[in-house]
Structure formats: C-alpha cells, structure tokens
C-alpha cells in the first residue's frame, strides 16, 4: 500500500519536476527571443534599438472562406510590401521598422469585426482590409468611433462611398466597374441578360448599377440573386438555366467571389442552355485557381467568357510587381493584389508623415501621401469619399496555357466608354 502511494508520489514528483524544468527553459528561451527582437508583447511602437521604432500594421485577410484563393496570394503580397516599405524607409533614413499583424477573417463579417477589435486592443490604429464590402460595412462604425483607419484594397460597393469617415479604399467603387462590364457585354453583342449575383452588399449594389447602365445603353436585364456561403450552387444554376430559357436571354452577368464563382461556372459547364450563351463576369473570381480547372477552362472557351477588373493595364510598375511576385513566390498576382500592395505602402508612408501614431493624424496624412504616390495600381489619389479617384479597368479571359493547363490573361481595357481588345482571345 505504502509502496504504491510512494510510487504514485514519485511519479507525480517527476512530472512536476519535468514541468518546472520545461517552464524554466521556456521562459529563458522566450526572454532571449524577446530580447533579440527588441521587446515583448503586442505594443505598437516599440524600441528595437535606442533609435529604431516598430510600427504594427493590422491586416484582416480572407485566408479562409469565399475569398480564400485570393487570400493565399495576398499573404505573399503583404510580405513583399512590408519588405519594400522597410527598405524604402531605411533608404530615406527613417529609423523605423514596419511589422504586419495578420489575422484571418474567413471572409465573414463578424470575424472581420472581431479582428479589428482585437487590433484596437493591441493599440493598432491602421488596419488593411477587410476584403469584402459586407465586411467593411460591419467594421465601419467601430472604426469610425475608435478612430481606426481602415484601408480596404478590394471593397468596391458604391454604397460605402461615404465622405469624412475612417474607411479608405485603394480601388474605385463598382459604379465605374459596372459601367465597364455593361459596356463590354453590350459591345460583345449581348442585348438581353440575366444578372446572376451574390445576395450581399457587393452583389446587390453591383447588380443595381449594372442594370441601370445596361438599360441606358438599350439592353434589357433581369436579376437573380443567390444566397452566399452555400456548399454548392447546382440548384441555383438550374434555376438560372430555366430563367435564361424562359426569357430568351443571350447572356449571363455573373457577380461572384472565388469559391461561389468557380462552383457556379463548373455547374454551368454541364448545362446545354448555359453553354450556348455568352458569359461576362465581375472581378471577384479573377485569380482563383479553381477557375483554371479543365471544366471551367473549356467552358470559358465555349461561351467566350470575359470579365472586367480594376487594372491599369499599361503600368510598368505593375509589370515589375507581377514579375517580382512570380519570381519570388511563383504566384501570379490575383485581382486586387496591386491595390493591397499600394494600401500597405500608403499606410506606412502616412504613419511616417503623420509623425505620431494617432488615427486622425494618420488619416489626414494618408490623403496627402496618396496624392503624390504612384504604384502598381496606378495613381492612388482618393476622391472625396476616400475611394481611389482614378480607376482604370482591364478585361480578362481564361485561355489555354500555363502550368495548370489554363491561365488568366488580361486581353483588353475599358477606356472612355470604349472597349479595346489588345489581343484576340477566343477563336
């Protein structure tokens, strides 16, 4: 009996000793690591050396969920942008270091808000993202009341173009892109289309603007909204086919994100009705690897699929950015990658110009910095609502080629209500 108790105690003592030793080693290692990087904890302005300050930039990115394909590319873009920012700041003689604090928001509104609140608790005043307009809408009031600067690289809903708030967007609103897409569809001969769109802030606003522009041009359209976040859209696509047949439509306008867009196109490829008409797509699914599957690639050729996306197509800085992303990470820049890159650079320079890590001061500085900044996304000056004032649009297609069998290709541009194809795509 005593022996058993002794054995049990001995085991416990050994366990406790092991835990204590592990804790001591852990503490020592942690302290050493913290000392080597210049501080402990999530403080925003930390002295690395007596002269060097660390500024944290929060990023709420869609690393999972409906924009996850793009999110994975963006993670690398952040790395590139932060490195460039630090190198440039150092070259200009600033004794500072910028660090990214990345949180996944799952392309979900509530998670984006939680992330921004988490950044606020860490004292972070500048947040890049969230990506989707519905998410920006949810974080907006919290950001405004806590004076946290939100710079979204991809939110495009015109309904969020609100002056004097703390939300900035390094991309033009969809009021412009809807016109580009409507012009493209009309130019390509579509006269009666079904607008198949996400039932959210982005999809609804885009569909509204598209409908107005397309009908002004003389076309006619009807809307079919689908619920977002579903596991599959087969039945929605079947209803779309039925609608196209009933109305005798000659085109579909798809306003989607990555995963829903890929899913819808995969099912549309199985439909005879939907394979006989033209398809035009918003910028959302551009860059998503799922669209490069043989099913979607062949469908794209069959229906001569074209999409629009915010892009300054003849920008040498974009070409350089693309080349660096490909050579460094083996990744093609998906949609809004260049807008994200510029958002991070602008945030960094605005912090430096403000001279103080304060939301209001950085906001004022951001507007000034953006006026004189020119990056891969072009000239970044903001309009009165905090959106990119000058936004150009490119036309993209899915063509055979590349390591995956199909690839995205920028094949034209939209300029002053005119579509210009720079190369022949579908023969």
């Amino acid at each position, binding site marked *: 009996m005593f022996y058993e108790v002794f054995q049990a105690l001995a085991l416990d003592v050994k366990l406790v000793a092991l835990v204590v030793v592990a804790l001591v080693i852990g503490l020592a290692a942690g302290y050493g690591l913290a000392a080597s990087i210049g501080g402990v904890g999530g403080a925003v302005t930390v002295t690395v050396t007596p002269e060097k300050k660390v500024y944290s930039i929060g990023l709420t990115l869609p690393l*999972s969920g409906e924009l996850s*394909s793009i999110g994975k590319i963006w993670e690398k873009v952040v790395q590139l942008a932060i490195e460039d920012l630090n190198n440039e700041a150092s070259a200009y003689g600033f004794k500072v270091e910028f660090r990214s604090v990345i949180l996944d928001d799952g392309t979900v509104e509530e998670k984006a808000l939680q992330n921004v609140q988490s950044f606020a608790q860490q004292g972070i005043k500048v947040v890049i993202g969230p990506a989707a307009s519905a998410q920006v809408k949810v974080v907006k009031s919290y950001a405004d009341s806590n004076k946290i600067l939100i710079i979204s690289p991809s939110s495009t809903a015109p309904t969020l173009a609100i002056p004097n708030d703390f939300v900035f967007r390094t991309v033009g609103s969809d009021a412009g892109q809807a016109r580009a897409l409507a012009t493209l569809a009309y130019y390509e001969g579509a006269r009666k289309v079904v607008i198949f769109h996400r039932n959210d802030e982005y999809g609804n606003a885009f569909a509204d603007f598209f409908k107005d522009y397309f009908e002004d041009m003389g076309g006619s359209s009807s809307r079919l909204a689908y619920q977002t976040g579903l596991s599959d859209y087969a*039945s*929605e696509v079947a209803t779309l086919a039925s609608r196209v047949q009933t109305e005798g439509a000659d085109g579909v306008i798809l306003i989607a994100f990555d*995963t829903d867009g890929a899913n819808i196109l995969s*099912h549309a490829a199985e439909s005879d009705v939907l394979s006989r008409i033209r398809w035009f797509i918003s910028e959302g699914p551009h860059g998503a*690897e*799922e669209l490069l599957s043989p099913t*979607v690639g062949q469908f794209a050729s069959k229906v001569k699929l074209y999409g629009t996306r915010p892009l300054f197509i003849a920008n040498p800085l974009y070409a350089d950015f693309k080349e660096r992303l490909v050579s460094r990470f083996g990744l093609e820049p998906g949609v809004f990658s260049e807008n994200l890159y510029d958002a991070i650079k602008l945030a960094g320079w605005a912090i430096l110009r403000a001279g103080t890590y304060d939301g209001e001061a950085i906001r004022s500085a951001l507007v000034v910095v953006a006026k004189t900044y020119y990056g891969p996304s072009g000239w970044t000056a903001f309009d009165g609502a905090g959106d990119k004032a000058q936004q150009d649009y490119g036309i993209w297609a899915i063509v055979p080629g590349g390591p995956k069998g199909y690839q995205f290709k920028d094949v034209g541009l939209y300029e002053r209500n005119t579509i210009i194809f720079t190369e022949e795509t579908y023969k």
Partner: protein
Amino acid sequence: MINFVQYSFFYLILALPLTLSYRTTKVINFAHANFVTYGAYIAVFLHGIRGSNSMALAAALAFLIVGGIAVLNNIAVFTPLQRRGSSPAILMISSMGLWIAYKYVLYMLTDVAHFFTSKNFVSYGRITYSDVPRMSMAGFDFSQAFVAGMISSALVLVALYLTLEKTKVGRAMRAVADNPTLAGISGIPRGLIINLTWFICGGIVAVGGVIWTSFSGAITPEAGDSMILQIFTVGFIGGLVSLFRTSVGAVLIAGIENIGIAFLNAYFSVPISFKPFLTFATLITTLILFPPLGAGGGLPYRFLRRGARQ
C-alpha cells in the same frame, strides 16, 4: 431533376451514417461535418500532390483513414466522457470541439501542402477522375458524380441492410442500439461494436466526401460545414433512429432544395436565396412536430403531457 436525384444520393450517403452512429452510440456528432471534408481532402491531396485521378483509390483510403479518425474520436473523447457519466449534451458539445479542432487542423495541412507544392488547397477545383465513366441515357448526360453517387448509395443501402439484418455483427449493433446494458449482459462486446459502428459511419461519409470532389466546383475546408444543416435536417427527419425515415428525409430535402425552390421561384417569384430558409424551416418543423427530438421535448409533446396531467 438530375440535381434532385444527385442530391438524394449525397444526402443518403451523408445522413444515413449520422442516424446509424447516433442510434448506436447516443452521440449527436457534429464532427460528422469533418468526416465529409476529410474524405474530400484525401481525394484533393491525392490529386494535387500525387497526381492520382483514381476515385476508387481515394474512396478506399478515405474510408480507412476517416473511419480510423471516427474510432479515435470515440476512444479518446466519447468513451472516457461516457465512463465519467457525461450527459448527451456534454458529448454533443465535445463533438463540437472536435469539429472546430479538426477544421483548423485541416487548414494547417492545406498550408503545409501549399508550402511544398505552391498549389492552392484552401479552395480546390473539381476533380475529373479516370476510373469513373460518364453515362448517357434517354437523352440525359450523367456526370461522374451522378454515376459514383448512384453506385455508392446503392451499395451503402444494400450493405447496411444486409449487415444489420443478416449478420451477427448487425444484430449486435441493433442490440447495442436498443438496450446497451442488456446487450452488454448478453455478452455482446459493446465497446467493439460501438467502435465498429464509428468506423463504418466515418468511412461511408468519407466516401461521400470523395464523390463531392467530382461534383462541386470549389472544395474548401468548410465543405462539410456548409452541408451540416441539410445533413442534420435529414437525420432529424429520421428521428436519428430510423434508417428508412432518414432515407425519406434525404429525398425530401433534395426535393425541397432542387424542385421546391425552383417551383416557388417560377410561379410565386420567391427568391432562390430562400433555399437555406426552406431547409431550416423543415428542420424547425421536424423538431417541433416530432418529439422527443423536438425543442424541449417537442412543443406538441409538452402540451399533450401538460394536458394529460391536468
């Protein structure tokens, strides 16, 4: 119509094991969603990393691995909790914990796979398999997913019927489901039977996940999560007890989602975005009308009992 039949196959394969596992183990298992996703991702990893286009290989591996995971869940989590006298609610909550943990483990695995291959596994395109034919009949073209779903659901139905009705193991499973204590006293190795049930259930669902990769255009680590509403609705229609009623539920929910919403949209202009609402309404109606799985024992059930006491 083809979608309706296709979804009936899916819901049969995915929901029958939920009912079977609950009635044998008494665990309302939310990690069921992981079984679907892990099955799908075994196929995705085989395709993306190894370049395999064989659905048979993916299905066999998925059955074994996910079946093993289901057994592991039981041995490591459910059985110890049951031994400590945990209530069904605690078991259900623990399964939710597993659900979340497994989901993020999968996200980590996709990141690791991405690191080594530079391919995006967080959202993966449809897989075209080399060992499943497409079929054409009476002017209809049937996809690989349809053929695989039809064969698999037929196999599952026949195998479950034969196992449960004609074999000693099946009789033991039914005995454990009906009265676990009595089954134990009668010499049935209860633990072994429960582990076997988990293995079969996890395996079948994983095969459903593999077939899903030939159907969906975008496979994500949340694939199973976004199907959980439908799977549980189908299971609840079967009262999580009756395999026959679960099968009816599979056909009913597939019908509501594919024919019902199309009908309502065409004739009453009901937006198609109402589809999840219809499924949810069916779930709530089922819970209310069919005690004891209904809310708080089922509302009519409670009223009836109160009336009887008065």
